[in-house]
């Protein structure tokens, strides 16, 4: 996001019945707490004027019934909802989840390039990816796709210039300082560094989503043999 951004909340048009509410420009638990509050307030106050919301790291996309509420009235409501927010993160009661990852240049098509671009060895990138707990900031892009952060600055890398048409399920990627596991085969532009054998979304399971917003996740290196044993596919 650009440095010229004024105070938050900032409201932008995102379509004929969509507005984007920006609540910050950083990945941090305090902004995440604001996002959750604004999302909840908008859901309560808009009622049947709301189609859906898409909360993310620092923003909420609001899809509204344009024939039931005027854009200017919505903008005012959004700004009001953005006032007096609590930055405390004490309501963070997420679980701690460990996800196994088969790392390596064979498992992650972009590991070698990412390492080289950052002046590191692939081993050092893998080590740094596992050295901390990641906060789950948003679920989106695809079902069960958990946006986590932040990775160590020395292993960050922008998205690929042209997204891949098909990323394998379980692929573990880095985009800037975010990290995620692709739950299913899909197009994607993240730098791939390994593969996780855990199904992040299973519509048939009692709990279809493996992780939820607010959870903390740590990655743990496993061998190729362990990866296959845990349900990974070649």
């Amino acid at each position, binding site marked *: *996001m*650009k440095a010229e951004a004024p105070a938050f909340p900032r409201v*932008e*048009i*995102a*379509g*004929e*019945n*969509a507005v*984007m509410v920006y609540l910050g*420009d950083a*990945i941090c638990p305090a902004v995440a707490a604001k996002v959750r509050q604004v999302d909840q307030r908008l859901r309560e106050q808009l009622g049947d004027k709301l*189609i*859906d*919301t*898409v*909360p*993310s*790291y*620092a*923003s*909420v*996309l609001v*899809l509204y019934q*344009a*024939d039931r509420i005027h*854009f200017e009235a919505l903008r005012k409501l959004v700004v009001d909802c953005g006032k007096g927010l609590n930055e405390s993160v004490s309501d963070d009661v997420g679980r701690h989840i460990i996800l196994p990852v088969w790392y390596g240049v064979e498992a992650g098509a972009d590991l070698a390039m990412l390492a080289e671009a950052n002046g590191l060895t692939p081993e050092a990138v893998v080590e740094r990816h596992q050295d901390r707990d990641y906060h789950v900031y*948003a*679920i*989106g*892009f*695809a*079902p*069960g*796709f958990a*946006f986590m952060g932040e990775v160590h600055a020395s292993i960050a890398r*922008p*998205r690929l*210039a*042209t*997204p891949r*048409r098909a990323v394998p399920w379980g692929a573990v990627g880095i*985009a*800037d*300082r*975010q990290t995620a596991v692709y739950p*299913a*085969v*899909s*197009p994607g*532009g993240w730098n791939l560094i390994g593969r996780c054998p855990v199904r992040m*979304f299973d*519509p048939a399971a009692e709990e*279809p*989503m493996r992780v939820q917003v607010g959870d903390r996740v740590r990655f743990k290196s496993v061998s190729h043999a362990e990866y296959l044993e845990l349900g990974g596919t070649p």
Partner: protein
Amino acid sequence: MQDGGRWGQHALGLTTGGAMDGEAFFWANRLVGNHSDTTAMEVAQGGLQLECEGTTTLAVTGAAMPLRINGQTKALWRSYQVHAGDRVELGHAVRGLRAYLAVAGGFEAEPFLGSTSTVLREGIGEPVKEGQWLPCGKPAESNWALPMDHVPRYEPAVSLRVVQGYQAAEFSNKARGHFYENSFKVSPRSDRMGYRLEGHVVAAPTGDRLSEGIAYGAVQVPPDGQPIILLNDRQTIGGYPKLGAVLSIDCWKLAQCLPGETVRFKPITLTAAQQLVGEAAGVRASVRLKRCE
């Protein structure tokens, strides 16, 4: 199988799915007397053969796919009563890409979180398979046709209206000029998730960007400068900069385009966009179907 889409589940990361050509889907259901959100079959490209095991009413709308009932050529955009033993065939599309087959009462399909829409990318639902039995409802009392002047045309060159928004102000004037003044070709790498376009490079603003929610029709520009229009099976969150969103009532035109066909964009204001959407709903509501035998 598709309905109007799986709305209200974005927080789980679920996309909406739903009929790619909402206009043709609407008329298919209307012609057989269904509620507008009823489950119908989306047929891409064509080549479908069905055998009836009972009596029902059906209608085919959308792409120009030759429709034959018991070998006889029939018009699209009207309903027919079919009986046990009748053979219904849809040939390959000669214009457009997707046709909609609706039956009275709708096709039976298992809903997931309130919708029957198939989203293959999410592993929700499956394509209709050879040999599958498709339970249908009872026939309608009459057959109906959509008046010709309301039948949409599927053109090899389409113009789409765009509500400017998102990061539009971060793109340079030159980049926005390139986007609105040039035409683009539909890439073969287009699908229900998004239509990728090829043409003049639209320079996207650079820099770190946090992933954020994506609206239907969003115009996303990755660093290679080739826009992607995000449609029904779009990702719910993404981080590439966006110029705005294609007007919802124009998205069907794109969804009927084949690779190599041409797309142009025209900017419109939010006020104009909302007015156009309202007018389109009014026109739909005012159309009188023609009764036929």
